């Protein structure tokens, strides 16, 4: 981040002053040249690349501060604990969460949702109770609920979406009932890029005193999340999708819910007293953090959030909307291409199909041109069924992408068209 004024942290630069090419240079991986071509990394919805500051802070932790946390009465362990707990404060600040003890470190969004399904929902669900999700959820926000339904006899209900990939609010209203025990929806669809009207949906659920979990695995990297405004009851994201390390993520839960829940895993750290007869659980957040956490991962995640704050989420959002618009227009002009998901509110994720070629073939050819996209069901098989496609190709953009990445994508798609129309000759 050498070219951004460091003192600007937490009060980011005006958009016009942000040096995007310099920011791109903060990401060492982006300079590699697969097959001798520049790398256009457009699979950011799967995982993001890491800026130097994140890579270095993980290495720095291991070189200088590594110790187990919360238990040692020596300097090194105090330093590790301080770094670990400071990260919790940073996340609280990043999400504007009410209380630091409402932030729980987990492996990622998937684990967070399983935690809520097992520790919150499972003991509370009775047969024929209902869990409400949307038609555009990631498998990680489907399967944990199916498992708890199987365990309890509750039922999974699905809020439909229209052909643009937008939640149908009337159907949602109709589905909410006394039977509904929790609503779990994505804050940004990884397959379509749609941003559902979560604020309205939370208000509608709360009117019936139904708690709402937002799956922020995609959202948190793309726009400012304000938990006090949203007032959702649970929120989650994964570090690796927000420029942080793999193997770390967080669950936010309202204190009143978390306190009433049974722990998810048992072990060190999450108890205050153990005898063979019984154990007392520790206070929040530790009650939900059994075992040694991903300490270096947490430290790296804090560095990632600091980095994002330096650029500013408003700047990021604005830049990514530019890229989204540029790419949408360019793709719409590509012969035989159809974009799946045309929601009014979208983030920089575009799914598409080509008449000439299957997404899998597209992806192989693009790869050889240095363009990394995702082909497949994007862990959203039911959504593929909804749009009656076996799979899609997906390009997802980060603020570090640029217009030439998009040119490279579009030109490579033209090559696909050529190959599959047999116009290549020999």
């Amino acid at each position, binding site marked *: 981040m050498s070219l951004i004024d460091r003192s600007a942290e937490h009060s980011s630069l005006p958009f016009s002053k942000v040096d995007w090419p310099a920011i791109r240079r903060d990401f060492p991986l982006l300079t590699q040249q697969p097959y001798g071509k520049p790398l256009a990394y457009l699979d950011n919805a799967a995982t993001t690349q890491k800026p130097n500051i994140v890579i270095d802070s993980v290495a720095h932790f291991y070189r200088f501060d590594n110790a187990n946390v919360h238990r040692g009465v020596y300097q090194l362990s105090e330093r590790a604990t301080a770094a670990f707990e400071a990260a919790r404060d940073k996340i609280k600040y990043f999400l504007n969460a009410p209380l630091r003890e409402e932030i729980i470190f987990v492996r990622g969004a998937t684990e967070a949702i399983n935690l809520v399904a097992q520790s919150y929902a499972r003991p509370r669900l009775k047969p024929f109770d209902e869990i409400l999700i949307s038609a555009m959820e990631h498998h990680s926000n489907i399967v944990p609920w199916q498992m708890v339904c199987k365990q309890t006899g509750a039922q999974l209900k699905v809020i439909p979406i229209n052909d643009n990939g937008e939640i149908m609010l009337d159907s949602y209203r109709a589905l909410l009932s006394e039977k509904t025990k929790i609503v779990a929806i994505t804050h940004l669809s990884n397959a379509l890029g749609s941003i559902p009207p979560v604020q309205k949906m939370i208000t509608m659920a709360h009117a019936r005193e139904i708690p709402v979990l937002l799956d922020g695995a995609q959202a948190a990297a793309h726009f400012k999340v304000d938990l006090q405004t949203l007032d959702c009851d649970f929120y989650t994201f994964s570090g690796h999708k927000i420029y942080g390390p793999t193997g770390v993520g967080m669950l936010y839960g309202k204190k009143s819910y978390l306190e009433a829940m049974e722990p998810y895993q048992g072990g060190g750290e999450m108890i205050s007293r153990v005898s063979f007869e019984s154990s007392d659980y520790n206070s929040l957040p530790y009650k939900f953090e059994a075992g040694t956490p991903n300490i270096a991962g947490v430290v790296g995640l804090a560095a990632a959030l600091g980095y994002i704050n330096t650029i500013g989420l408003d700047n990021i959002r604005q830049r990514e909307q530019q890229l989204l618009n540029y790419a949408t227009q360019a793709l719409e002009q590509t012969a035989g291409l159809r974009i799946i998901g045309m929601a009014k509110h979208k983030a920089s994720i575009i799914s598409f199909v080509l008449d000439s070629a*299957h*997404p*899998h*073939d597209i992806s*192989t050819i693009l790869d050889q041109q240095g363009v990394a996209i995702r082909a497949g069901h994007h862990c959203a098989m039911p959504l593929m069924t909804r749009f009656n496609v*076996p799979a899609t190709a997906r390009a997802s953009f980060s603020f570090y992408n640029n217009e030439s990445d998009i040119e490279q994508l579009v030109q490579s798609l033209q090559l696909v068209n050529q*190959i*599959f129309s047999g116009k290549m000759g020999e």
Partner: protein
Amino acid sequence: MNDELRALYQEVIIDHGRHPRNFKKLDHPSYTQEGYNPLCGDRLTLYLRIADNKIIDASFEGQGCAISMAASSLMTERIKNMPVTEARQLFDAFQNLVTQPDPPKKIREYLGKLTVLGGVRDFPVRIKCATLPWHALNACLNNITKQIVSTE
């Protein structure tokens, strides 16, 4: 376009991918086998009619990439009227083609037209696409063996 891509997407493959032969449901098949590649969502159903230890008819249905469509199309073309024992040999030869760095000339000659699929060798994640119908075939053949064993 580089040589590897050219080798992968040969005209025969594009053609069979586009216009797969034997793309239909078989009436009264002796064997029906699903094949599924979770990575990309390719999914196909293979139908075989077998009599006297011979594959009388073969067809498939499903959806998938050019490679798996072409592989299915070419495979069903080839195995029609083939004794079951030979189909097993063919399966082995095909595995050899797509996984060995330099398949022997004998094998390539034996495989004939099927060698066009050899290009996947340079695309490790695509090998599964080419072998999907073959694994479905193999599963059918194994079922036959079991039946024979159990009826003897």
